[in-house]
C-alpha cells in the first residue's frame, strides 16, 4: 500500500474533503501527500482547490480525489457545496492553537449536515513538530475522537510525519467497506453496480465507485 501509481488507471475513486480552520495546514497536508511538497508561507485557499493521488490497497488501485477547502467562515456557503458526495473527510486542527481544536465541533456539525452521516472522518492534529508550542494534548483529542466516533491521528506536514498514514487510513477504511461487502455477496468486487466510471465532484454525487471491468480496456 502507498505506492504511487499512474494517474490514468485505477479501480476505485473516492472523494475526500479537507476541512478545518484557516491556517491549520490543510493545503500543506494535501501538497505533502500528493506532491511531497511543503511550503513555509503558502497562500490562503480561496474557495476550493483540488488534487489527486492513487494508492494501492491489496491488489487494487484506489484513487483519492481530494478537495481542499478555505478555512474562513465567510467561505462556508461556497465550500460546503463541495462536501456533497464525499465518502471521507480529514478534519484538521492545529495542535499549537487551541481555538482551532475548539472549533472542531462546529466543523463536525457542518460535515454531518452536508454529508451522509456514515462518512469516514479522521480528526487530524497537525503541526505536531512544534512540540514546545503544543496547546492541545493528545489525550484531549483522543477523548474527543472517541466520543464523536471518528478516527484520530497527529501529523506534521512539515516533517512529513503521519501524513501518508492519515490519508491512507481513511482511504483504506472506505476501501475495506466496499471490498468486504463484495465478498459477502460472494462475488468479486465487480459485483458493485456496473458501468461506472466516474464523474465525481462534478454534476454527479457518485464518489466511491468501482470501475467496471468491461470499461477499463
Amino acid at each position, binding site marked *: 500500500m502507498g505506492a504511487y501509481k*499512474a*494517474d*490514468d488507471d*485505477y479501480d476505485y475513486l473516492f472523494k475526500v474533503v479537507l476541512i478545518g480552520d484557516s491556517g491549520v495546514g490543510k493545503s500543506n497536508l494535501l501538497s505533502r501527500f500528493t506532491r*511531497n*511538497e*511543503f*511550503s*513555509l*508561507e503558502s*497562500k*490562503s485557499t*480561496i*474557495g476550493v482547490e*483540488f*488534487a489527486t493521488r492513487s494508492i494501492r490497497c491489496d491488489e487494487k488501485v484506489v484513487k483519492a*480525489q481530494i478537495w481542499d477547502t478555505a478555512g*474562513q467562515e*465567510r*467561505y462556508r*456557503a*461556497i465550500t460546503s457545496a463541495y462536501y456533497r458526495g464525499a*465518502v471521507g473527510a480529514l478534519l484538521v486542527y492545529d495542535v499549537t492553537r487551541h*481555538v482551532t481544536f475548539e472549533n472542531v465541533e462546529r466543523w463536525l456539525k457542518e460535515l454531518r449536515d452536508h454529508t*451522509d452521516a*456514515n462518512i*469516514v472522518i479522521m480528526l487530524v492534529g497537525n503541526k*505536531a513538530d512544534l512540540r514546545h508550542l503544543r496547546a492541545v494534548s493528545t489525550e484531549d483529542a*483522543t477523548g474527543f475522537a*472517541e466520543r464523536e466516533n*471518528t*478516527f*484520530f*491521528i*497527529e501529523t506534521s506536514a512539515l*516533517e512529513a*510525519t*503521519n*501524513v*501518508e*498514514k492519515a490519508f491512507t*487510513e481513511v482511504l483504506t*477504511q472506505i476501501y475495506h*467497506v*466496499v471490498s*468486504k*461487502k463484495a465478498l459477502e455477496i460472494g462475488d468479486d468486487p465487480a459485483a458493485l*453496480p456496473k*458501468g*461506472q*466510471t*466516474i*464523474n465525481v*465532484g*462534478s454534476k*454527479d*454525487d*457518485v*464518489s*466511491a465507485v468501482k470501475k467496471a471491468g468491461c470499461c477499463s480496456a
Partner: protein
Amino acid sequence: MKNSTTTNINHHKEEQQHHPKNDPSTVSSIDSRFNQTLKNVQGLLKGRSIPGKVLLTRRAEPPDDPSIQSPTFGRSFSENDAGGRDHMHKSTEEKDQSTSKRNNEGANMLNPSTSNIDNTSKETHKSPMTARATDSTRVTKFTKELSVPTVRLERLRELGWSGVPPYMRPIVWRLLLGYAPPNSDRREGVLRRKRLEYLDCVAQFYDIPDTERSDDEINMLRQIAVDCPRTVPDVTFFQQEQVQKSLERILYTWAIRHPASGYVQGINDLVTPFLVVFLSEYLEGDVDNWSVSNLSPEKISDIEADCYWCLSKLLDGMQDHYTFAQPGIQRLVFKLKELVRRIDEPVSRHIEEQGLEFLQFAFRWFNCLLIREIPFHLVTRLWDTYLAEGDALPDFLVYIFASFLLTWSEKLQKLDFQEMVMFLQHLPTQNWTHQELEMVLSRAYMWHSMFNSSPSHLAS
C-alpha cells in the same frame, strides 16, 4: 527574513512517535464503521449509471502557447510604449478605421469555429493597430493632463486605461480612485486631512488592548495575523516584518470600519498593488530589493493611509463581493459563464459536459482580482485598467476574465474535468510579459464594445 521558497523535504520514513492508543482502528469498531460506510457508498451509487470511461492521461507540462506570442501585437505598454491606444478606449467611439476594423474582428469572433485564440491573434496580427506614437508623446499627454488646475478625470481615465507610466502611478491612481481631488489647489490639504484621519482610526481601533475587543474582532484580528505572512509570499519584499505590520493595520482598520463584510481572506492580496505603488515614491529599483527600514515612521504612516483609503475606494464599488455568501461575486461568475457561452460555444459546451462549474475556478479570480493568477510584476499594469474603469469595473471584470480564460480555449477543450480543474488552478502564466496581458485586455475591450452595445443579436 523568512524564506518563501518551497522546501522539498525528503520523504522521511514515517516516524513511530504515534502513541498506540491513537491508532485509529482502536477508536471505533471497525465493523460497524464498515457497514455504515458501505450504506453510505451504496446510497450514493443507487440508480446511477455513468457511461463511458474517463481518460486520465497525464498532463504534460503546458507548452508555451504560441498564440500569445505574436510579437507584432506587442502593445506591451510598459513605460516605453506611448499612446496609440487611446483609440481603444470605449468612450472613444469615433467612426474611424480602427473602429470598423474592430468590428470585423468581432464578427469573426462570433463564429465558434474561429473563436479560438490562434485565429484571434492572427487577425490581430494583421491589424494596423500596432502603429503607435512614441514614448514621449504619451508621457507628455499625462504630464499635460496632470498639470492643469483641475484634472479632467474622464480624460485621465482614457489615458490611464492603456497603462500609466510607473512614476506617475501614485498620483494617477489617487485621482482615479477619487481619493485625491481633481482640483490641485485642494489636493495637498485633503490628503493631509485623510492621512490624519487614518492615524486616528488606527489609534482608536487597532492600538487597543485585546480586552477592549469583541470576540468577533479578536477572531478577525487573528485571521488577519494568519494571512499577513502568507500574502504574495513569492515576492520577498512582503516577508519583511514591518511591511506585514503595515498590512495588518490597514486590513484590520478597514475591516472594523466595514462591518457588513469584515475581513475576508483575499482582501489582503488587494492591498499589495497599492503598497508597491505608493512605496515607489520613496524606494527605487526592483521591488525585491526594497527595504522599508530606512523610511521614517511618518512616511510609512502616510503610505499606509493612502493604501487604506484607496482600498476603501476600490471596495466601495464592490460592496457585496465580500458580504455573507458573497452574492456580488456569484452574480459576476454567472455573467462570466453566460459571456463565455456567447463568445466561445465549443469551449463552453465542453466545460458544461465535463461538469466543471465556473465557480470552481473563477471565484478566486473575482475574489482576488486576478492577483493570484498572473506574475506580480504585471499586476500594477492590470490595475491601471481596473482603476480607469471606475464604477464600471465589476462589469468589465467579466470581459477581462472571459478574455483571460479563453487564452486557453483550445487547450481546455482537450482536458477532462479533473485535468481542467488542475490546469485552471495553476495557469501557465509564470513567463507572461506585458504583451500577453495587453492581449487579454485588448480582447476584453473589443468584446465589451461588441457585446455591450448589441447584446441581443449575439445571443443566437
